[in-house]
């Protein structure tokens, strides 16, 4: 099986402090990814140190601002600009802010909650009580179709 992975949900207000702590411990920033939820965004901050993979997770609502971590990890600016341009999440104080011009997309914020329709989870099959039938069912019989 694959490597063990840790996902730690944290509060938005704790983000920069926890990230600074990871930086001090020698973790590198692997990526920042964003996922669209029903009416929110989930941001995953991935870090690695000697192949130990750790993720911090914050959840924000549309229109809510997120602090930049580019003061701690200078390479975060690309991910943060990407999240802004594709999802419409506003990231405050990015060290290099493209102001919405990193991605030239045909529609604005194509990955935002307004544009993404999430798949429905599978419906749970309700267990129907077994009822005795008068007539045995024939193999290959199609419900609703009468045969001669």
């Amino acid at each position: 099986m694959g490597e063990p992975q840790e996902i730690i949900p944290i509060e938005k207000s704790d983000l920069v402090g926890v990230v600074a702590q990871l930086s001090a411990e020698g973790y590198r920033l692997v990526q920042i990814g964003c996922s669209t939820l029903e009416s929110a965004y989930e941001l995953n901050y991935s870090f690695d140190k000697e192949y130990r993979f750790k993720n911090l997770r914050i959840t924000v609502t549309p229109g809510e601002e997120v602090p930049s971590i580019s003061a701690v990890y200078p390479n975060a600016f690309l991910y943060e600009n990407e999240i802004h341009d594709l999802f419409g999440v506003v990231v405050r104080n990015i060290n290099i802010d493209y102001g919405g011009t990193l991605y030239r997309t045909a529609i604005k914020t194509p990955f935002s909650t307004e544009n993404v329709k999430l798949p429905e989870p599978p419906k749970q099959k309700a267990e129907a009580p077994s009822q005795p039938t008068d007539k045995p069912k024939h193999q290959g019989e199609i419900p609703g179709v009468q045969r001669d």
Partner: protein
Amino acid sequence: MAHKNVIPFGPQHPVLPEPIHFDLVTEDERIVDAIPSISYVHRGLERLIEKRDFIDFVHVADRICGLCSFMHAMGYSQAVEEIMGIEVPERALYLRTIWAELSRIHSHIFWLGVAADAFGFESLFMQSLRLREVVLDIFEATTGARVILGVCKVGGVRRDIDAATLKGIVDRLASLKKDLEELSPVFIDDYSIRHRLVGVGYISQQDAYTLGCVGPMARASGLAMDMRTLGYAAYKYLDVEPMVETTGDCYARCLVRIREMFHSMDLIRQAVGKIPEGPVDLKVKGAPNGEYFSRVEQPRGEVIHYAKGNGSRFLQRFRVRVPTFSNIPAMIKVLKGSEVADVPNIILTLDPCISCTER
């Protein structure tokens, strides 16, 4: 103080095989700032996950990039398999490793050719691409395709390779190794090439780490970081050794790729010697419910395939963080302070893949 000029570089440029643009702010011949622009051909492939069944989506993952085609399919499949707890048959893991290492060899030979072309070495470019054909022929013989292999699937691989063909691959690679041993000294020892690469585009080990460098770019700066040591696919059974150089310049990045080609041939030889008999795939039942970050070492470095599902046939989210995207901040750092004439070499030795970046 010299007057500042902005020189546009790309998206079309003789040494750039793919579209990326830089605004190079210069003072005289020295670059003081570099502002990259991407997204000329952004395809939004990640959102296709909403319209494709998770089993079929592997064909989309296959098409993220031509050079790393197989590894994208493998990374995506691994992510789904981890979520679903699928134990892929051992033989399939070995076959994946063999095709992945062949992909690395042909990507690095292609890089050597493109680099030679940028140096003005036309004949070296042709020699390199002639040798690359050997790998493409092996792809064609084993998968039926030369670029987009389409052979990886969730739960295993679509094709098996018989013992005689596996032996044939090792023999052909032995012959290719001899040819590459003749070719590589030109890249290593030629005066003109050394003059263009040695001491150019230096990035320190500390900068490589803090700026998120991956792949040959990180290893050329002394970081022994290679995702294959995680032991995915059949790498856990093979002797994987990260190829590390310490000088951190363009020349070191060239040396790392040359050494990796030979190492990949050795890994294939090991894999062929150890591959077990057995099935190459298994039937996948159900749908993924959970999430996983799959990490794979592509020719350009660590790639992340993130998949998240809620139990339906369509995933909620698929994300790819490609190595080139991770290397761009370091690219900017290296360009600052360099000479305008060195820009093509610096960008080339980072081996940017914009097709991956514009997934």
